[in-house]
């Protein structure tokens, strides 16, 4: 019997995390795609471009993107691409959900609420 707070091996922590490298000009995901993973920019550059305003967001290492996947049935709201190439850490949907489940119920509810609002606003 393993409790929820039981320490996990490094191997199991890696599960759901995947380091990927993209060459210059590569697209990480495109707007409208169904995608279930979020990404953390480790090295390089990522530009998010999409939405009705076609807004352009430049990301720096240490920033996370693609968190829409947490919202049920949501599609990618922007296209993520790299100009110079980048290294990202892909965080699986499962891992994201697990993280969310570990969180405080209040925070969970709040995140749930915000994401629903976001879906409502964007549709």
């Amino acid at each position, binding site marked *: *019997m393993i409790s929820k707070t*039981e*320490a*996990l*091996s*490094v*191997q*199991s*922590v*890696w599960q759901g*995390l995947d*380091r990927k490298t993209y060459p210059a000009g590569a697209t990480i995901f495109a707007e409208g795609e169904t995608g279930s993973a979020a990404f*953390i920019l*480790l*090295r390089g550059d990522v530009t998010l471009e999409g939405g009705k305003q076609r807004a352009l967001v430049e990301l720096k*290492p*240490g*920033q*996370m993107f693609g968190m829409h996947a947490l919202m049920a049935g949501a599609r990618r709201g922007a296209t993520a691409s790299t100009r110079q190439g980048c290294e990202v*850490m892909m965080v699986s949907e499962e891992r994201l959900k697990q993280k969310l489940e570990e969180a405080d119920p209040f925070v969970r509810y709040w995140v749930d609420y915000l994401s629903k609002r976001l879906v409502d606003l964007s549709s």
Partner: protein
Amino acid sequence: MDIAAARKTRFTLFVTILTLFLVAALLVGIGVTAADYIQNRSNALRVAAETFKEKIGRINERRLAFFAAPFLVLQQFYGHPALREATGSRDEILKPILPGLAMNPQISAVYAGYENGNFFHVLSISETEKPFIERLGGPAATRFAIREIRDDDGVRKASWRFLDARGQQIGALADREATYDPRSRDWYRDARAEPEKMIRTAPYMFAATSQTGMTLSRATEGGAVGVDLTLDRLMEYVRSVRSNENQRFVAFDEQNRLLAHFDPERMFKTSGTGEAKKVELATTADLVDPVVREAVQIFGRQGPYELARIDVDGSEYLATVVHQVGRDGSGFHILYAAPMSDFMGPLADAAARSILAASLIFLLALPALIYFAHSISRPLSKLSEEAELIRSFQLAEPIRLKSRVREVNTLIRSMSGMKGTIREITKFVPKALVRELLQSESTVEVGGVTRRVSILFTDIRDFTDMAGQMPAEKLMINLSEYFEELASLIIRESGTVDKYIGDAILAFWNAPLPVARHEHVACTTALKCRLALRDLNERWAERGLVPWHTRFGVHVGDAVLGNVGSSDRIDYTAIGDTVNIASRLEGLNKHYGTGILASGEIADVCSGGFLFRRVDRSQPKGAGKPLDVFELLGMREGPEELRATPDMVRLVEDWNRVYEVYARKDWLGTLDALQEFAAVHPEDVVAGIYLSRVVGFVLEPPPDDWEGIIHFSQK
């Protein structure tokens, strides 16, 4: 025990008891000897008095017997008609007289003297008188000699006739000039002076034979008759009464003239020399024997006495002087003296006898004495050994002793109970503490001292969950087995088991007794516990039991050691942050997935001997300073089962590379390093935690002044 007392010689109880018995036996021996001697002495005086009476009685008997015949002979002479006239034939008397003389050797002569100077003299010739007859010219076979002195016309003439043993005349001597005149002699004059009385002269030397003796005489109508008695015979006769040469007797008359002396030579004293030589009867004043002189002096002071004690030259004598009346009516005294030792053995003999008897009794009783002394001393000496065992805290064996002595038995029972009680008590309190109490002989008081101690805290992983799935009795049995395993190991390693808290054990080193390198000992013990529990779990697995996993926390620091509680119930315990941190370290195992966590303080001291893995810097809730946490993996050298494995060494090496990058706060580099590390050590939990943490740091880096301290909100 103070030093002065320790220096005194101590005897064993056995020797003491035996000596007491010996002294008692000796005293009894001496007492018996003394009593014996005193009894002997008073007996001796009584015996002496009786003996003296008997001796004097016998002397008297002999004296009377001695004198009886002479009296009879004198009586015959006195009344005989043939002797009544101064002249005429006397042959008629010879017939009755000669046999009387022949039968009584003490009579040397019988005679009659008359007023006209006539004298009729019958001599009994024995060996001693033979020379006299020879000189006279009589035949050698003469047995009796008869002398008659007649006064014929103014010329006094003596004639001799010699008779043989049968009374036949064998020779004669015709008239010779007579030199002897009865009328000038004492016997004659004294008898004539007191006509109605039998006269006894004092001893003197006989005129005819030069022998010493005395004369009994009695006056007749015209003269006097007399009988000569030789003293030799009397003396010989009386001396034979004595039991030995040391006994003395003397007889003396009222004029203090000697009548008898145990040494006949002393009867007379000679004065002058040559022609003037004069032999005189000795008196009591002439006595030379010191015993007799002393006895006579006493007599001089107080008259006759029954018994007197005389000391002469260190020897004790007893003497008596009694008054006697002779047949002739004259009074005289008999002195008899004898050494005290004749009536009692000397003291030495009595003592020897008694001591011999006492020794014999003691020897015969010795086996019994030894048995009794042993039966008292052996259990006591065993018991004192037991007491020493208790003092040195060896309580395992119950006391198996018995004694015949009730008090000793009670003592054994009490002591056995005490030992058992202490044994039981030590299960509730640290043995080292009780041992210290027993050895320092101090009392327990509330209070404490601050001391640096190494603390080991153990706890069973998920015990609460397991407890819920197990019957309570079974759980208690298992838990006891588990505690026995761990606690006995900790105690063997000189640790003090402070308390059991549920399934946790709190133990420490360096108190109450100092322990050298206690940090190392604590680490070693933690490793040994881990090993012991592995064995225990194997045994349990065979019995189908679920294994228990124990987590350990090891820390060193100052703690307040002392007795805490009420006067009724005092616990010796360690209190302070140090204890809390040890407990916290144990709890952190859960978080880091480790088995033994040690503090940085431990790692600082022990890293030379043990392999540690740096785990984290954490700030537990409520703790003052951040805590460096290390995992204790094994010994660098030592028994194989306690030694760190090559895998562990490699793990630490690999991990140190990761940590180096982490310490630089290069989070992306750390991710790289962790990825590399995970490829080799995929099961490592600490690395997992770091991975999660570093991913977080990538998203939200800690402030620049961050010192690597991780805060734990949960306990």
